[in-house]
């Protein structure tokens, strides 16, 4: 069965574009410095593994291992139990930039550009000269394929250094990739440790095992054994398509006329709408889309934005869900109170998206400033927090109305906030996928989700405060009871223990019938 999936995936995999450019612009892909490079390599491999497992309907079981080889060299190993990749495709997927199945498919997934893992291979090659080692097995009755791959940076083509069958891979199916690269390992914020932990929070259906360079081993067990709803692929909506994408779609389409190209390759475009678009663009509906020149395509693209169309269907999204978010936060942070909200899907520029928020308060969380975790399609975003729509939305909220104080815009206290955006097309601010662009529709949805959680957390904090005040009031009364008993005994001659127990009885009575007359407002005088 997994073999079939792999072959199906193979059909969609095709050449996209050329590469050498990235060798000189590695920062665009998240390799700006050794610390970030190490994280990016792990992230690309794990994201691919999770996508592949979910695609194949397999509960992910992923091993991440980083070995410190000294002199800033690290060996990164990521191994999954996914469907594996057929041997014909392996060289291209790992050894050719911008080759993949996900680009422009119109389906929510972690990767969306087809450059991630091959960029990691390229980075390893550039820093250590070592080829990537890839094991793949598509089913238990198939042999394990082992590849040693390099990338010909001039041609953007894979170079197979070695290819053989082996039995060194233990899993029944899946991929194991080993890369040797220059990097730097850090702990805490923006580290691989943090990435793996946050990944576990939003992927409770995955089992993650992580061996850190210092030899520590972390196992994030599965807390959900249901796979998330599989996202349905949708065709792009005319409002959300970029001109460049339109050009490429027009060139590769099998449609014979612009009219059928529009109705066939886009959602929510009927015959009438297609003709309207053509009329506005001054293009004959019967002309061949492959033959349109740049000007015509630009006009076509502009008219596509002008016609009135229905919103795209919203069932193409796979949110994490409130239950799983709550489970994830509980498991990794041990809060005393946790709440989650999944907003209904919404649309920005023709792209459906959905915002979710989870918030944990108190308990094992001991932070002074709130910990904010950002996720896009279940991938943690660790860099460029201040540029991100999620951070901005959080800063725009008036936290004091929820009993949470705010310092330079950010909420404080023992608080963990997770915000997730699910979308077919996440609008990142750059290729390295670190921050979400500031579309007003997106910011608004984030605010609504976070506010709803904050309201519940605020109510919890207030309740807790009330309980504390009640306890304090009680203990105040208790402290004064022996004093009153003593003085009253001096005045009346009554036994002070009797007075004491009388007062204690009253206090118990007040406690049990909640509130009581203790704080009745009276006209007690003020000083002059």
């Amino acid at each position, binding site marked *: 069965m997994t073999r079939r999936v792999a072959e199906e995936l193979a059909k969609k995999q095709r050449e996209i574009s050329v590469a050498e450019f990235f060798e000189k612009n590695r920062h665009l892909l998240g390799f700006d410095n050794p610390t970030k490079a190490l994280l990016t390599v792990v992230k690309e491999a794990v994201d691919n593994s999770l996508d592949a497992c979910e695609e194949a309907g397999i509960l992910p079981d992923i091993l991440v291992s980083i070995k410190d080889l000294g002199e800033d060299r690290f060996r990164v190993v990521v191994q999954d139990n996914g469907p594996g990749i057929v041997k014909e495709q392996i060289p291209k997927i790992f050894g050719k930039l911008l080759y993949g199945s996900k680009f422009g498919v119109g389906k929510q997934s972690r990767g969306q550009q087809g450059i991630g893992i091959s960029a990691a291979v390229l980075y390893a090659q550039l820093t250590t000269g070592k080829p990537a080692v890839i094991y793949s097995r598509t089913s238990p009755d198939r042999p394990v394929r082992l590849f040693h791959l390099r990338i010909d940076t001039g041609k953007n083509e894979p170079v197979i250094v070695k290819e053989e069958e082996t039995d060194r891979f233990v899993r029944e199916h899946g991929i194991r990739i080993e890369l040797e690269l220059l990097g730097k390992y850090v702990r805490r914020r923006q580290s691989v440790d943090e990435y793996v932990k946050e990944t576990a929070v939003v992927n409770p259906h995955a089992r993650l095992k992580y061996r850190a360079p210092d030899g520590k081993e972390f196992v994030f067990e599965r807390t959900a054994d249901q796979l998330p709803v599989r996202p349905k692929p949708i065709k792009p909506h005319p409002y959300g398509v970029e001109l460049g994408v339109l050009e490429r779609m027009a060139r590769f389409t099998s449609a014979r006329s612009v009219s059928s190209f529009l109705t066939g390759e886009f959602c929510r475009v009927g015959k009438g709408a297609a003709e309207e678009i053509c009329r506005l663009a001054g293009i004959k509906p019967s002309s061949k889309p492959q033959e349109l020149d740049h000007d015509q395509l630009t006009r076509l693209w502009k008219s596509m934005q002008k016609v009135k169309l229905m919103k795209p269907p919203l069932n193409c999204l796979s949110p994490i869900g409130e239950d799983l978010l709550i489970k994830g936060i509980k498991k990794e942070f041990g809060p005393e109170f946790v709440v989650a909200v999944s907003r209904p899907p919404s649309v920005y520029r023709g792209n459906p998206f959905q915002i979710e928020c989870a918030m944990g308060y108190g308990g094992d969380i001991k932070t002074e400033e709130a910990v904010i975790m950002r996720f896009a399609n279940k991938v943690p975003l660790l860099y460029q927090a201040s540029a991100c729509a999620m951070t901005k939305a959080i800063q725009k909220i008036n936290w004091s109305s929820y009993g949470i104080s705010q310092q330079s815009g950010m909420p404080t206290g023992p608080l963990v906030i997770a915000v997730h955006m699910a979308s077919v097309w996440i609008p990142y601010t750059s290729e390295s996928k670190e921050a979400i662009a500031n579309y007003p529709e997106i910011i608004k949805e984030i605010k609504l989700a976070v506010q709803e959680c904050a309201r519940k957390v605020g109510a919890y904090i207030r309740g807790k405060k009330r309980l504390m005040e009640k306890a304090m*009031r009680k203990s*105040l*009364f208790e*402290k*004064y009871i*022996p*004093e*009153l008993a003593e*003085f*009253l005994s*001096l*005045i*009346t001659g*009554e036994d002070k223990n009797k*007075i004491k127990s*009388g*007062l204690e*009885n*009253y*206090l118990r*009575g*007040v406690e049990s019938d909640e509130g*009581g*007359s*203790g*704080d*009745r407002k*009276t*006209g*007690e*005088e*003020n*000083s*002059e």
Partner: protein
Amino acid sequence: MTKAEAEIEKLGKKILNEIREGKNPSMEVPIRSLGTIRYDENKRCLVLEKKIAKRYFFNVSHIRKFVQTVAVAALSKELIEMGKTSHLRDVYYRLVRTIPGTNIDLVDDQSETDRCIEDLELMTGKLREELHINAKKSGSVVGNVVIKDQGDVIDWSALGSGGWSIPSNVENIEFKKVDADYVIYMEKESVWERLHEDRVWKKLNCIIMCSLGQTTRGIRRLLQRLNKEHGLPILVLVDFDPWGYYIYSVLKYGSINLAHLSEKLCVKNAKFLGITADDIERYNLKKHFIRLKDRDIKRIDELLNYPWFKGKKVWERQLNMMKKFKAKVEIQSLSSRGLTFISERYLPEKIKNEDWLD
């Protein structure tokens, strides 16, 4: 058992009964505030309108005062039983301590116990002195007067440079002989010493009396007795500033805190001898101006609103002059005209001309 003792017991029993009945123990404290006092035109003094505030034990904002008040009551009862009296300051020291096993101090400073003592006076209807609690001795007096105090016969004219120290409780003093035409009361001890040294009381045949700053209850009561029982006019000599005028005001009309005792303390026909705005002109005291602060000016406006000053041309004129000068003048500035100027010129002249305000 004295009446005061019985009243304290009554208060204690009421609280005890409420505890036995499972109620929130309470006490009823007459409220003394701007809202409950008013100026009585007929009585010509401040009076307290009866308005009660309930103070509860099981109430976070009442509990502290509640326990303090009961503690003061217990202490007062003990004093009465033992036939001893205690000073306000001693009451504070008897109660100040940390409640065992807590971080709460039963009282923090003396103002709290003083306040509780006043509450107790109001609740029992008994004077502080009857509760066997006294204030410190608070002033001096000299003049042709012979009194009897606790069996001792005392001649006010034969006590050397210190004069007789006025105790806080003058209730039981017996006047044997009063040979004087009026009383000059002043707020300043140094002025009193000057006048005593110059034998002014002898020359003008008067009684001179001083307090140290605020007029205490003992002094007010003594002045009232001299005025009521022996018909002596009371002349008040204070600084030309809002605080001096306030001393006169309290002496004559009463204060918010002691409004319940106005009848026993106020000297309703007291006269304001000086220093007046006109004195400043006449005796050329402008060169002794001390600039008033903003809060002093505010105080003048408050005085202008007192019902007994408001609309009274004499007083409005004085206070408005003060505002106009934006300055005060102290009594001591008279000595710039010569050490004995006040004794030999200022006082005789003012009294001869009956140059005072009423």
